[in-house]
């Protein structure tokens, strides 16, 4: 059985995550008025409809694109040497020290508690249309899958292949991939929880909710 207290303690030792904000493509960078030590926020609102703090503007082909902070945190470093310079794709602009949120901690602990089904190879993954429809129409954590079920479509090198789930029967409790992004081999795709263990998982979440202080 998982020792939640130990895990939590471990996380509490270093409750931060460093986020490096990089350019999504080439262009000329102009930083917003941000300084080291300044607090920034990520997208806000009930539907995350308000964007985060603007960190910089990246202009490419006369199209200025704002770059926002993805999460709440404190600016650790601004790469101001790039001010007004043309930079390549994936150039670091700002690093943010982000205090883990309750949800993130939950996720870290759940990764230990859930059965993880991992990507067999580096590829893009999608749910099969039936599963996708089910996921969209039902509550999170209620879609049950069985061993050997066709669950994913794996897409790489312009070819698509079905991928079958192997592992205990249970509900899809967590999803760790985005359909548009490549997933590395062995990275987890989903976290599955056998139905009889759902109460335990709920307990994990309760524990995190009571013990993790957000600031």
């Amino acid at each position: 059985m998982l020792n939640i207290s130990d895990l939590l303690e471990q996380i509490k030792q270093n409750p931060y995550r460093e986020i490096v904000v990089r350019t999504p493509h080439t262009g000329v960078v102009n930083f917003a008025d941000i300084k080291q030590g300044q607090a920034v926020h990520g997208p806000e609102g009930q539907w995350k409809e308000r964007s985060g703090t603007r960190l910089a503007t990246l202009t490419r082909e006369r199209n200025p694109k704002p770059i926002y902070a993805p999460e709440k945190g404190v600016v650790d470093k601004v790469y101001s040497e790039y001010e007004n310079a043309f930079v390549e794709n994936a150039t670091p602009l700002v690093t943010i020290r982000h205090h883990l949120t309750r949800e993130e901690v939950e996720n870290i602990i759940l990764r230990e508690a859930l059965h993880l089904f991992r990507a067999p190879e580096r590829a893009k993954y999608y749910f099969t249309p039936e599963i996708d429809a089910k996921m969209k129409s039902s509550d999170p954590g209620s879609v049950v899958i069985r061993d050997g079920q066709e669950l994913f479509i794996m897409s790489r090198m312009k070819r698509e292949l079905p991928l079958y789930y192997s592992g205990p029967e249970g509900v899809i409790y967590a999803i760790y991939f985005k359909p548009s992004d490549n997933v590395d081999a062995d990275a987890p795709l989903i976290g599955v929880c056998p139905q009889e263990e759902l109460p335990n998982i709920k307990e994990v979440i309760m524990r995190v909710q009571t013990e993790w202080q957000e600031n």
Partner: protein
Amino acid sequence: MDNLFLKRIQSLRDRLSYMQDIFAGKHADSVSLLLQKLDEFTEKVNNDSLTNPYDELVALEDLFKYVEARLDASITPLDKVRIVRHPQRICLRDILENVYDNFTEVGGQDEHSIDPSMVIARAVIIRRRGKKRYTQSVMVIGQEKGHGAEFRNGGSVKPWGNAKARQFMRVAETEGIPVHTYIFTPGSFPIEDYPGAAQQIARNIYCMAGLRVPVVSVISEGGSGGAEAIGLADKRLMLSNGYYSVISPEGAAAIEGHCRGGERPSQELVEKCACNLKLTAEDNLRFGYIDKIIQEPPLGARSYHFDFFRQLRQEILLATDEVVLSAKLSPFKKIGVSHRNKPGVNLDEMYMRWSLTQSAKTRLVKKRQNKFLKLSREAAVDKRPFLTKALHTLDDLVMTPVNEFKYEFYRKHQRKIHAFLEEAENEWDVFRSWLRKPFGKQEEQKVKEAVSSELTSLSTWSDGQRHKRWNYLSPRYKIDQAVTCPNAEIYGCPDLWGPDLFAEFAGVCSNCGHHFPMEPEWYVRNVFDVGTVMEFNEEIEAGNPLEYPNFDKTIRAAQEKTGCKSGCMTFEARIDNIKVVVAMLMGTFRGGSFGAAEGYKFVEAAQRATKNRYPFIAYVHGTAGIRIQEGTNGVIQMPRCTIAVHRYIENGGLYMVLYDTNSFAGPVASFLGCSPYQFAIRSSNIGFAGPGVIKSTTGMDVPPHYHSCYKAMDRGHIQGIWDRRQMRHNLIQALQTIGGRNLYYR
């Protein structure tokens, strides 16, 4: 002290706090004087040191009366807004109890109602002639503010509340009893759930435009669309301290002061806007949008003003009688009206029947429609030369009967002739094929040879324009610039190149299909047959009827920017050779706001379509709503244009609405939303109030894409969503299938 005595003191306290509220800090000396006197008096009461309590109380009451009367003269428009919203203000239930002799509330008991903000009641009035008593029934419909009771939602009616109102207007029509509506609303509640705020108001207005019973309405708080939902009446009375406006002064000030996200405009700005909006009863009487002002007691009618209720009853009876009389062809009509308008007449003792014959009902409706159609013309700037106007009138006189002959008589008989000819042709074909039979074999052989060469050699193809060129390209195509699709985050759309996007792609993202807004010209030139667009009435210009400060300049700037004189372009055109009349609301002209000039042109266009028997298309490139700087001159376009559309449709016309970009508020809640066929261009938004307005009026956060056309279709507000590039094709298809063979008129 007895209870009644204490009650009277309490009543004075209420009057004082009311005074404090409505003046919001103004007239502090008067208020503190009264407060001091009242406190002294109460002190004495408590000490039992009054020598002559009743006399002193009366003296104090007189003082109150005196101060109230004095202050009444200095009431500002914003004070009136506060009066109307005050919990002590009379509400509909007060009226039901005090003006009518008896009533039964329909579909509501306090908070148990589909919408407690809308109260419906069957009420009776008992009148006498000599010894005989006559009971007259009316349908009373109105918003209930309930002296501030929370469940009444301040009289802000939800869509289903308005639907209930419409339902019982129809009931009244069936029963043949007059409708009395009482308008106590700051505006309708801006939610889109079915039947939808805007769409339901539109249905209500459309219904009232043709309601075949007398309608009298009384306005206390006339908040724009919410007021119009039950406001299209034969006679509109207004309480002297009421307001009737396109928008609340706070709302106007928020726009004027460019306030964003919960920011509040300054009090001075609100006060200024309240004045500029010309929302008082006097203003509206001057414009002709109400028929009469009912004088209230000083500082506004409250529940204990029983004289006022008696007066209101007389006015209501008079108005209803007058409406009924006006529809009758009675020789005593004139006498009846003047008789009733004599001072000191008690209408309770002058019974007259309120039922009407079928022909009188038709006259009633026509009269109501004409009355509204005539309104607000002076509020637009008509620069058409005199000759044009004269010709227009002449043309009307001549062509109306000509067309009537053409369509009513000739068309009917033409069909019979056609049917005969068709039959004859069929017979001839049969005969001919019999004649040619012996030569059949030879032809078959020839056909075979032709086949193999047809499969391998070049065929003729007249329609070989594979790379269709648009007739009009957005000027933005000339700018070498990348453009980010708003859906890039969700669908991963790469940045588009402006010259591709705004020319070949017709403003459509090649990845996700998002439609970027295009210029109105794009539609005019790419949807209709080339060279067939003929604009009319372009000389009717948007003006500044309220003389709103600095607004002349703003309008001139918009005219220069767009090259148009108003936000509505009306034209005749052909599409696949089908003649149509189009009214286009242009989002580029002051956000597509709709005022008197636009309404004028829209009504004229509808009438032109009626006269010529053409389909009538309202293409809404975009509209932000009624132009607030025109005040009620703008609001009145809601019933006006709906009436024009009502007449057109009832005459058998095909009226289609097509929304693009953003269409909100008044126009959607009236003459657009009432169309049975409403379509939308992809990526458009349709609704009653924008997210900002919803947030500021209701405090609710609005989910993203709340007003998107797909959501609008999910809710049943629109009938289809079109790709811009297919608009011409879809329009032709719609005209052919909805209009049928006899396209324009049923």
